[in-house]
C-alpha cells in the first residue's frame, strides 16, 4: 500500500526539481541576451555554454571572411610561399539540406575571434598566447598538412578579406611565430 505513495512523492520531487531548473535556466537566458549582470562572473561557471546567446549576426554582423594560410621554412633558411588552407568548399544548392563542412569554417571563425580577444588581454605577456587553445588549434590545423622534404619550421597567418564586391584589400589579422615541425 505504501509503494504508490513513495512513487507519487518521488514524482513530485523530480517535477519540482525540473521546473526549478528550467525556470532558473530561462532567467539566466534572458539575462544573457541583454548582458544583465555582465559584471558578475556567473558565465565562467557555464562551461557547457548551456545559457544561449541568441543575438545572431547582430549588433555587428560579420562583414568579412577569414582565411588561414601557412608557409614553410626549409633547410638553408629558404622560405616558401604562403599557401591557403582549404577549410570549406563554396556554398552549393545542396548546402541548404546537407553541409557538413560548415563546422570547419565556424571553428576557424571562433578560434580567430577568441585569439584576437586573448591577444588584447595578454598584451603584457604575449608569449602566453602560444599556450592558449585557439592558438594551439590553428597551429595544429596547419601542422597536420603534409610537409615537403627539408621543412624545418612552419608558421600560420590569418587574413581577413571583404567579400565579392569591395574595394578594400585583404589584411593580415594575425601571424604566428615559425614553429618547429
Amino acid at each position, binding site marked *: 500500500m505504501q509503494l504508490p505513495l513513495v512513487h507519487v512523492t518521488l514524482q513530485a520531487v523530480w*517535477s519540482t526539481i525540473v521546473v526549478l*531548473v528550467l525556470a532558473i535556466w530561462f532567467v539566466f537566458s534572458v539575462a544573457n541576451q541583454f548582458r544583465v549582470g555582465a559584471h558578475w562572473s556567473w558565465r565562467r561557471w557555464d562551461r557547457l555554454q548551456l545559457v*544561449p546567446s541568441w543575438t545572431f549576426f547582430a549588433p555587428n554582423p560579420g562583414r568579412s571572411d577569414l582565411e588561414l594560410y601557412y608557409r614553410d621554412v626549409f633547410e638553408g633558411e629558404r622560405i616558401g610561399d604562403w599557401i591557403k588552407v582549404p577549410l570549406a568548399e563554396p*556554398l552549393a544548392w545542396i548546402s541548404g539540406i546537407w553541409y*557538413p563542412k560548415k563546422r*570547419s569554417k*565556424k571553428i576557424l571563425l571562433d578560434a580567430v575571434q577568441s585569439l584576437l580577444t586573448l591577444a588584447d588581454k595578454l598584451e603584457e605577456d604575449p608569449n602566453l598566447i602560444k599556450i592558449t587553445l585557439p592558438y594551439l588549434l590553428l597551429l595544429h590545423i596547419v601542422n597536420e598538412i603534409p610537409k615537403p622534404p627539408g621543412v624545418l619550421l612552419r608558421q600560420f597567418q590569418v587574413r581577413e578579406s*571583404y567579400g565579392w564586391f569591395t574595394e578594400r584589400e585583404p589584411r593580415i589579422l594575425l601571424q604566428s611565430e615559425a614553429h618547429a615541425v
Partner: protein
Amino acid sequence: MLSSTLAAFGSIGPASAVKLTSMLLAFGLLISTIEHLSCWYEFQTGGIYSWKILSTNWNEKRFMLGTRAMAVVFDFPGILVVYGIQAAAAAAILLQASSPGVPRLPLILLGATQLLVKFRYGFGEDGSDQMKTVIALPLALYAVAPSSLLGDAALLFIALQSCLAYTAAGIAKASSRIWRSGEAVFAILNTRSYGNAALARCLRDARCLKLGLAWSVIVLETLFPLCVIVHPPLFWVFLLWGLGFHIFCAFFMGLNNFVWAFVATYPALLFVRQLI
C-alpha cells in the same frame, strides 16, 4: 471560413505537442549527427576536432574524471560511438512516429548525448546547436518520469526560449546602425562564408530592397512573441515567415540545421497559445 479552418488546425494537446517537437528535433539531430559522422576523420588525432587539442579546454581534475576515462568517450573513435548513439536514438523516435506517445529511452539518450557533445566542443558550435540543446534537455528530463506537469513545463520552456531567441535577435539588430540602414543584409550576403554572389550583386545598389529586407527581419523577429497571443491567421503568418526565413538562410547562407532546430519549437508555440 479561413480563420475557423486555421483555428481548428491550430489546436494541439500536450502529448501531441511533445511528440511533434521530439520528431522534428530527432530529424534535425539525425541530419547533424550524420554530417558529423561523414567527417569522421576530423575527430582523429590529426583532425580539426582532435581531442588532443580540444581537451586542453578542460581542467580534468576539476571534474574528478581521469584523462583516460575522458579520452575513451571523447577521443577517436569513442566520440563516433556517442554520435552513433544519438543517430540511433533519433532514428528510433522517427520510426515510432505512428505509435502513441514518445519512446522514453531514445528521448533521454538524445538529451544525454547532446550534453556530451557540448562538453567536447568549445569552438565551432552555432545557434542551431544551442536551440537543439534547449529542446533536447527539457524533453529528456520529462522522459525520465513523464507527467502532465513536466510535459507542460518542457513545452512552456521551449516556447519561451523560441520567443526569446527571435525577439533578442530582433532587438539586437534594431540597436545596430548598420542593420537600421539596411547595409547589414548586403554586408552579410557579400561574404564568401555566409553569402551569395548573385544575391549580393542584386542588393549592391538596391537601397530600398536592402532597407525593406533588413526592417522586415527586425520587425518580425522583435514582434515574434506576439504570435502566442494574436488571432490564428496572424499566428500562421508569423510561423510561415519563420519557416521561410530559415529556409532562405539554409539555401543562401548554408545554415541548414537552423531550419529543423527552430521549426521544432513551433509545436510548443502552438500549445502555449492555447494556454493563454
